[in-house]
Every structure is written in structure tokens, then in C-alpha cells.
């Protein structure tokens, strides 16, 4: 009874730590395209839309594809299996969440960082600077 309990607990701890570590790696950290292709696993990539390269939405296959440049300057085609996100054109920055597949990045989610509509930066210029006086 005693050795069985010990072996059981050791196995339980080993398997659950494997499970937890693996689950953590599936969430995917922030990296650039080259790092994502080297690791081959899920990744978040921050970058900008390359406006002068081709982009299109194919309504029959429901694939939106465009080119994105990451923070290190690597350009890759990104494929998103959904319609184009609203206010995609206004984006200051994009974060794509997905997997690399060869030279193409398959995005499961796209986070579009838009400038806020509710702030007018000019208004703040009139506020007197209270720190100096």
C-alpha cells in the first residue's frame, strides 16, 4: 500500500506539471515572425499593415489575407479565416494571434489597435501647465 501511494503521488505531480507547463506554452508569447517560425508554436505578433502590398477578402472561402510587417521589419502574408475586421484601415497597430505555416502566418484572432475617438488632443494644449509657476 505504502509504495503504491508514493509512486502514485509522484506520477500525479509529474503529469500535472507537464500538463500545466504545456498549457502555458499553448497560449503563445509575444514574438516576431522569425522567432515564431523557428518555434513553430502559437504566437502573438505585433506589427503594422503593409498598405502598398496586395490584400483581399475572398467571400467564397471566407479568407482575408494581407501583408504585415513586424517590429523587426520582417514582412509576411497573414491569412485570417474570417471577414476583414471592422476599422481595420484605421489601425495604428495590429496584433495577430495564430500559427506560422511555412512563409504564411495563419491568424486565429486579430487585435486592431485604433486611435481613440473620444479624445481630442488639441483641447489639452490650452490647459495651463500648473507644474510651472
Amino acid at each position, binding site marked *: 500500500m505504502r509504495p*503504491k*501511494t508514493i509512486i*502514485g*503521488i509522484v*506520477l*500525479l505531480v*509529474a*503529469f*500535472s506539471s*507537464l*500538463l500545466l507547463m*504545456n*498549457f502555458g*506554452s*499553448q497560449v503563445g508569447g509575444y514574438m516576431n515572425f522569425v522567432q515564431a517560425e523557428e518555434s*513553430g*508554436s*502559437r504566437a502573438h505578433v505585433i506589427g503594422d499593415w503593409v498598405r502598398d502590398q496586395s490584400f483581399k477578402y475572398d467571400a467564397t472561402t*471566407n479568407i482575408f489575407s494581407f501583408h504585415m510587417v513586424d517590429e523587426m521589419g520582417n514582412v509576411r502574408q497573414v491569412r485570417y*479565416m474570417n471577414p476583414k475586421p471592422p476599422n481595420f484601415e484605421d489601425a495604428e497597430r495590429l496584433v495577430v494571434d495564430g*500559427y506560422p*505555416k511555412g512563409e504564411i502566418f*495563419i491568424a486565429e484572432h486579430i487585435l486592431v489597435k485604433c486611435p481613440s475617438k473620444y479624445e481630442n488632443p488639441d483641447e489639452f494644449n490650452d490647459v495651463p501647465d500648473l507644474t510651472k509657476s
Partner: protein
Amino acid sequence: MSTSPAHKWLRGMSAVFMKDLHLELRNRYALNVLLMFVLSSSLVVAFSVGAESVSTRTQAALLWIVITFSASLGLGRTFIAEEERGTVLLLQLNIPGSQIFAGKLLFNTALILSVNIIVLFVLTFLLNTRITDWPLMIATMLLGSIGLAGATTLLSAIVARAASSSALLPVLLLPLLFPLLLSVVHATQNSLPDGLGLNASIDHLVTLFAFAGVVISASVLLFDYVWND
């Protein structure tokens, strides 16, 4: 040779397994229920989807919805049937708990694996899709079945003495299966057309393996407390 403890343990396990297999082949209760459930739910899926082309993610999800509910329907029988037939005491007297658990686990794994293969072929035919990465699909089915059977076997032993046992099992089972379903749906999606293939799915397979390991080692630890009053 025949008196070594490992040999004796294996003999006890295979005795329980063969007993369940013979009983199942004689009255085919679980097999009939599962086949009816699988066929009718697959047909419902096929009719409601119609000629629409569904994304591979949805196809994988539909496949595992059918599998999960058929597992919670059919696999719970193992211990509940012992309770109904009044053969629990006989088993408790004759064979140590760990061998009973191993035999039942083996039987449940075999049962759910054969059901999974049927579901897979029926749904790929009805949804008009095909499997592009067979090694990944086989590994996913195998590890998924072991995890599913491991979780269900212990829970059905716990639930067997409750009054409304067959209704209680799915309720307890679903939260436990959450990590399994998450990985298994992704891995299945990767083995369908336009999927990412085996290399991108190693993480999911490791998760499935670890889940099966956690569930089975926890069951081995806990089974004696569940089984002996």
C-alpha cells in the same frame, strides 16, 4: 513463473476485461445504445448542416460533441451495471481493487475507441470532408480515447451508488473533460484539410498524454477509497 505478482495482477485484470467483453457481446446493451446515439446524432448534424460547407474547426467540434456525449452515455454502464445486477460484492471478494479498475479501464478504452472510429467515418462521410494527416488523427483518437475512458471509469465508480446515477455522470464529467476537449478539437482540426499538420500539434498531443496520465494516476490512488466501503 505463474505465481509472480505481476503475472497474477495481469491475470486478474484480463479476467475482469474478458468478463465485461463476454457480457457486452452477449446482450450488446452499451454497443446498441452507442450505435443508435451515434447514428441519430450524426444524422441530425448532417441534416442541420445541409449542403453548407462548414469550417474545419466546426467539423472538429461537431465530431467531439458526438463523441463526448456518447462516452457519457455508454461508458458509465460499467460500474452502474454491477450495482444493478448485485455483483459488486462478488467482485470485491474475488479480485483486488486495482485489477478491477485496470480491467474496467481497458474495456472502456476499447469500447470508446471502437465507437470513435465509427463516429469518425460516419461524420467524415456525412460532412463530406477528408482526413489529410492520418498519423495525427490516429494519435489524437488514441490519446483522446484513453483520457476520456480514464475520466469516465473513476467517475462511474463514484456515481454508481447514487440514486440517479446515469443522470449524474454527464454533469460531473463535463467540467473534468474541459482541458481534454480543448486540445482534442485543435488537434482534430489540424488533421483536416488546411490544417497545420502533425508538427504544429505536438503541444496538443503532449497535453492529451499528460491529461490521460493525471486522470489515470489519480484514479489508481483514489479507487480503493471509492471501491471499499
